[in-house]
């Protein structure tokens, strides 16, 4: 019954010329899609908690007292999704200077977003005395916005690595697909921000 020896030659072909039926799917893309799927459920829980506790804080301040619409941060983060697409396209075309420029712009825009968040938080903490300990609003606000910001920082770190690689000439067009997969993560962080923005700054105030 040892089937391995009995395998007829026409059933066996060398691996190199044999893409699987599923080879039209790239494993990196599927892996990143799965990661994004899992991360989405993670964020959903914090969104649910935020909405569930809306208006249930025993003490002030309330969201409408202290939150301002983060227009600058939003513009920066959303436009960074465009620049990263530009960078990926340039990298695929082998234009490493334009790719580096696009990555640099993306990182600067993401940095602006983090800077705006930092300014907002310092105003909330030192100006209004709102910390994670203050009330349910503080608890849910800092968790949700903080986890998003943490993901932005994670994305920025990876983009910085890619930028270093491009500047050093180590990252050419052969890696553009991997950088594109990384850009998916960046788009995801952007999409989460739209949800956070809607939840916290539009529905919540």
């Amino acid at each position, binding site marked *: *019954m*040892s*089937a391995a020896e009995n395998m007829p030659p026409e059933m066996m072909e060398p691996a190199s010329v*044999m*893409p699987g039926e599923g080879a039209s*799917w790239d494993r990196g893309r599927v892996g990143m899609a799965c990661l994004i799927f899992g991360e989405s459920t993670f*964020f959903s829980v*914090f969104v649910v908690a935020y909405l*569930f506790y809306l208006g249930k804080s025993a003490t002030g301040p309330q969201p409408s007292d202290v939150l301002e619409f983060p227009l600058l941060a939003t513009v920066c983060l959303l436009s960074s999704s465009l620049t990263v697409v530009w960078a990926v396209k340039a990298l695929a075309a082998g234009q490493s200077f334009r790719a580096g420029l696009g990555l640099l712009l993306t990182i600067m825009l993401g940095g602006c977003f983090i800077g705006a968040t930092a300014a907002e938080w310092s105003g909330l903490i030192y100006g209004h005395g709102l910390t994670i300990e203050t*009330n349910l609003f503080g608890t849910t606000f800092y968790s949700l916005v903080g986890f998003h910001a943490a993901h932005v920082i994670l994305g920025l770190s990876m983009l910085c690595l890619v930028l270093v690689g491009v500047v050093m000439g180590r990252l050419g067009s052969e890696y553009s697909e991997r950088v594109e997969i990384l850009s998916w993560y960046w788009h995801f962080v952007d999409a989460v921000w739209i949800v956070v923005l809607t939840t916290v700054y539009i529905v919540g105030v």
Partner: protein
Amino acid sequence: MSASAGTSNSGLGSGAAPAWTRVLHDWVTTVDHKKLGVLYIGCGLLFFVVGGLEAVLMRAQLAMPANDLLEPQEFNRLFTMHGTTMVFLVGMPIITGFGNYLIPLMIGARDMAFPRLNAWGFWMFLFGGLVLYMSYFASMGLYGAGTAPDVGWFAYAPLSGRAFSRGNATDYWVLGILISGFGSISGAINMVATTLTMRCRGMIMGRLPLFVWMMLVVSLLILLVLPVLTAAQVMLLFDRFLGAHFFDTQAGGDAVLWQHFFWFFGHPEVYILVIPGFAYASEIIPVFSRKVIFGYAFMVAATVAIGLVAMGVWAHHMFTVGMGRGLNIWFAVMTMIVGIPTGIKLFNWIATMYGGKIRLQAPMLFCIGFLAQFLVAGLSGILLAGAPLNWQLSDSYFVVAHFHFVLIGGLLFTIFAALYYWFPKVTGRMLSEKLARWHFWLFLIGFHLTFTTMHIPGLLGMPRRVYTYPADRGWEIWNFISSVGVIFQVLGVVFFLVAVGLAFWRPKRAGPDPWDAWTLEWSTSSPPPAYNFLELPEVRSRRPLWDLKHPNDPDWEHE
């Protein structure tokens, strides 16, 4: 090997590293899906012994009324550690281990999609498990002795909050499970990516072995619900360390929110654990009935349906908290609906056996045990889904008996079946059929003595998680029988361990295909080489090995 172990301290860099360090180095640094699968299953079995001994202690305490073998606090720690261990450190790694080992072999691939991520996931699981058990030594920090967490495996907040669970024992529970959860999530990503992108030529989704289909659904479920537990645990950590108020009722926090979050994870987790059991049975029953699986497409559809419905049943764990009529009806009805796809599966397995030439070898014995016991588990589950009856039985030993029927009668029996079935593939050696029979019958008798009996004290009103009980309630005899059953179960497992030891001490060679099976893992040698297949196979039907063995009557002419 052992001689050099005692004498040599030389580092790995030096050319003359002793054999055992080379073996150790090989296993610690491996990214091979087969070795990682063996590591997962091996560590899972080690934790199984630990969690099993915890259960033995609890049953010893409960054998007699007003027993004082264990302190109440010690009992609380034991049921917490037993439940947490069995779910997160036994069930999860063993199902991940089988998935790791078998998916690439079954789909004709050389490894998982992300081998290094795979290794990372295993070490995260092991690290998380060790963090949990560190609590016994370190949870009081520098003050000396430690204590294990005592908040139950679902760690209801606010009970597990800072106000009511002082010290760090609960933090070890949170962090240990959080860390091993990262491992599970990465493993699920890997299994989905492998299944979708690494299939050999001809292995279209409609020809995937049911094992692979079911693990795909399980992986998607993990991705859907495990991050929910992670998020809830992060909230609990924020409450405990940063003074946040997620579960703090003093500040307006909700006492039931944790229950919703936990069971939104916790109920699908039951399916995450038991669908792999279905997966093993779906591979083993056809081979030992000498028939094609009955209703392949229905099996796939039923699995997907279970996965979908599983997302809408979580609050049947919470009927007693008072959710109101509308929610009670929803969750009762949804829970009963789960019985439909599950029933389809049971009928399909039975229809597969019907008219088949059944070979009653160890894997099949355990599968038949599974079929009967899982039916009972499902029926008592439907009983519990009725909210009014649930108000009577919730948190009683009836519930304990029910979920042990699911997880032992269902999952553990199929895990044993899978161990007997694939052990020859993994090691190239057969397990003794004689010892396997002893194992099966002892474990079967022990299981029913313990858990069939356990329904009765539950119906008589014995609550779960009590460390002792008075003698005048009519519970004594049932508890005594339950505890006696444990002896049989332990003996059964000892026979299994002896059989494994014997397989290495006096090997009986297995050959590549000892069961005359039909899926691709049996087409390569036992154990498979590091590269799995010398040349990647091409598949034309759901039973590629049948086609090879029967060129005159291949399956692909009929599918």
